[in-house]
């Protein structure tokens, strides 16, 4: 594996040269470790796997729709591909090799993978949340849409109501300290109109607690920390001792961590913390692609307009933006509407319609993919367990 592919100084992680030398040692070795010539075969497999991972993440980087639903679906697909290859490798290598070291490695991966299951569940809830927002957006888009030849006061009020609800729900989502039931202003008049009329309602609106299937004390940030806990590159003797399996596992662990981290960054969930560091020695061919994506996404999250976002998913930020613009426009509109203002409104509505489409088309399949990730992890774990049961 040509570690010399990288220009730029490897921020010389201590393992960089070690990793390189170990891996090239194995290839060049004239006296095979286990007496067969399958040594170079193992090598090839390991190289191929790592290269494949690198390719997949490079493709993700190259796309121009970073953080969109479509991009996320691609991310999930990539994960599933990696996982399948990894499973195949496990199946073969697991049953041949020194017991304790191999067992420990595999147990380590599955510990992390099980933690990812809860992330998948939280993400599914978040997707439902996005779906709800999409429905509100749809109302506004239809009220102000192309089909409406005339934008009368009725349509405007309808759209405004929907967008106000949307804004309140999204605020609800972000407000970590709020009580369970948000006393929402219903439609009696404009958004500012308040109080007395509302005494009919006890508390309505989309309560945050209702969307979550994990307890309120669950934290995505903590879960990610746990997944990434003690994730260290394997040392040379480990690699040798496990016939390269430790590198497979290290790779897969990082892929798992990255994908979960990215999902948390994009989709609303409890306590989204983005402080996860990837310190992968540059000698790993997939280190750069993953780190690059990590940096880009982190950059996004720091941008002024994204800092308080419920989620970095492009469609979410679009909803937030267009919703805000629309609300501003609608707030100041007088009748009869000036053509300029009308165009502004219609434009925002068009944006919203597009987001709506993207959501309607992509969200269901995306949810299914998340579920598929869940299933595959469980499946591979039970397979892994069974194997260990039979051979301990």
């Amino acid at each position, binding site marked *: 594996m040509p570690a010399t592919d990288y220009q730029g100084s490897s921020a010389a992680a201590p393992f960089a040269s070690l990793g390189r030398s170990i891996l090239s040692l194995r290839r060049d070795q004239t006296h095979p470790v286990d007496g067969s010539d399958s040594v170079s075969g193992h090598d090839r497999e390991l190289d191929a796997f790592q290269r494949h991972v690198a390719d997949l993440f490079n493709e993700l980087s190259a796309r121009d729709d970073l953080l969109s639903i479509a991009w996320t679906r691609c991310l999930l697909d990539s994960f599933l591909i990696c996982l399948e290859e990894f499973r195949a490798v496990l199946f073969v290598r697991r049953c041949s090799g020194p017991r304790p070291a191999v067992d420990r490695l595999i147990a380590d991966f599955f510990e992390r993978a099980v933690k990812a299951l809860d992330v998948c569940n939280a993400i599914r809830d978040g997707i439902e949340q996005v779906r709800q927002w999409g429905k509100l957006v749809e109302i506004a888009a239809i009220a102000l849409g192309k089909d409406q030849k005339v934008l*009368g006061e*009725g349509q405007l009020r309808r759209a405004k109501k929907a967008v106000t609800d949307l804004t309140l729900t999204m605020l609800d989502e972000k407000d970590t300290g709020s009580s369970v039931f948000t006393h929402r202003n219903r439609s009696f008049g404009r958004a500012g109109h308040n109080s007395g009329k509302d005494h009919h309602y006890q508390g309505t609106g989309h309560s945050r607690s209702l969307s979550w299937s994990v307890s309120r004390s669950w934290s995505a940030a903590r879960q990610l920390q746990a997944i990434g806990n003690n994730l260290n590159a394997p040392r040379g003797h480990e690699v040798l001792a496990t016939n390269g399996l430790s590198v497979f596992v290290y790779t897969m662990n990082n892929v798992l961590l990255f994908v979960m981290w990215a999902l948390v960054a994009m989709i609303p969930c409890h306590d989204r913390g983005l402080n996860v560091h990837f310190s992968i020695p540059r000698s790993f061919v997939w280190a750069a692609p993953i780190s690059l994506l990590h940096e880009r996404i982190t950059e996004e999250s720091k941008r002024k307009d994204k800092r308080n976002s419920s989620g970095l998913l492009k469609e979410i930020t679009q909803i937030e933006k267009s919703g805000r613009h629309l609300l501003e426009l609608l707030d100041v509109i007088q*009748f009869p509407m000036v053509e300029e203002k009308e165009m502004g409104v219609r434009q925002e509505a068009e944006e919203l319609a597009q987001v709506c489409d993207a959501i309607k088309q992509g969200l269901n399949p995306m949810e299914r993919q998340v579920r598929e990730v869940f299933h595959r992890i469980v499946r591979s774990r039970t397979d892994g367990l069974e194997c260990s049961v039979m*051979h301990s």
Partner: protein
Amino acid sequence: MASSGSSEAAMPSPATAIADVEAAEQLIHRWDPVASPSHDRMLFDGSDRADAELYLRAIDHLRQSLGPSSPAPASPSRSPSNTIQIAMARLEDEFRNLLLSRSAEPDLESLDLGSLSISSRSSDHDHDHDHDHDQNLSDAEDDPGGGSTRVASRSASSIREIDLVPPDAVQDLRSIAERMVAAGYARECAQAYSSARKSAVDTGLRHLGVERLSIGDVQRLEWEALEAKIRRWIRAARACVRVLFASERRLCDQVFGTPSSADAPFAETVKGAAIQLLSFPEAISIGRRSPEKLFKILDLHDALSDLLPDIAAIFRSGPAESIHTQAADILARLAEAARGTLSEFENAVLREASRIPVPGGTLHPLTRYVMNYISLISDYQPTLNELIVTTPSARFSGEETTDHPEINFPDLDNRTPLASHLVWIIVVLQHNLENKASLYKDAALSHLFLMNNLHYIVNKVKDSPELRGMIGDEYLRRLTGKYRQLATSYQRAAWVKILHCLRDEGIHVSGSFSSGVSKSTLRERFKAFNAAFDEAYRTQAAWFVPDPQLREELRISISERLLPAYRAFLGRFRHHIESGRHPEVYIKYSVEDLEMALMDFFEGCPPSVHGRKRSH
């Protein structure tokens, strides 16, 4: 009763049409809180329906007027479509208010939850077996709550819908929903519905004790705690599905009229709760396999399997269908978990390698554990027969057999896979016990130990008709023969030496008829006998044969050999000793003494406790 929105038969003249429309608009604007904030009471507040009906009729007029022959609007802000929007906004609030103020909180506590369970085995295991199962795995003699009828019956209608909202309010909701949907405001209507109902569903779930546990939470819990939660979940799930969700579906159908228009609001209302409910069995199915979990996993499996048809009926269409799919998936996973757990148990039996011999050669805890376990398995026969489809030999080809070539696998033809597994388990247990038997230094004790344990196995099988049916009488006979043989081996090992003292040869000095008896030899013999018997008494009183019948049989068998031999020996030779000095040194025991002493054998108590009668 609000009128439906269909058009009237009579066609009004244009003049009256316009007048109608204007009147309608006026009415609606009068109730617009923006225009006239003074109106702050609700239209549909349950008392006087007149206003509400007028309002609805006004809406109907307006919508009719929006047909192709509608007159031009007087002013843009007063156009019918605007007015409709105002009306819709108002209706949405009325709708929401109705749902919130008229919802009856279902009294779930008073529900007869027991009647919601269908198959008798499920309720059996809820009430009777709560404690028994777990105790039995470690306890001594108890049999599991005997005779639980594990009949997989299923009644036609186990669903019990209740009124979540009083019927008159339902009517109002229906009227409102009709108008909103017809005016193109179905989304708002569905939104209002689900946001109001969601909180009610969530409250219901709370009251039933459904918890929000992540997979990590479930993994961290101790098994005892989990067992309690499983029991609670089974009860709660029945109420959730058959009452709560079913009632929500019915309400939704009533409010939205047709199932297809009710699909979306229903899914939105209950999806989160349903997912939350299912997350618990899902987490259990994912957990680590360990033998003690088997029966609770089966309980969970059975409960979910029971509920599945109801889930299919309630979550039958639209976005809610994924709930049914998920439930089916979880059921399959629970089945897998059960299979995996059984495998884990079998491996545990195979691998159990404690090397400390049980004192007194009595029952090994492993034997008791395993036999109790498979008795319970036979209780769950109906379910396990469906789940267990591979035989052990299929699984254990290769490594295992080469690891243990000495295990004699019986012929497993003509058995269900489950029965094969049970036989296999007993075979493995037997093999394990044989290894343990070899740990005893004393061969007699070794035989006794194995005899005890095999006998226990045979008895346990005989005690349970289901188990006996699966193990089969032929194998039982084989085991019986084995432990009888061991009894014989024990006797040989323990008593041959002693009986040897009472043999004839060597005592007579000359082959002639005359009484040429070597007195010294005789004295040696008596002394040897006494010493040997004392030794046997000392050690074997501390040995234990737990089964009273077997104990008695063994003693009888010994006495049948010992007593006649001793009596004959005494009869033939005592006068030789008695004619010499200190006969009491040599003839320590009478036959009765021996008989009495034998009664102390295998009691598991050291002999100093007993006095021993001596007769001279």
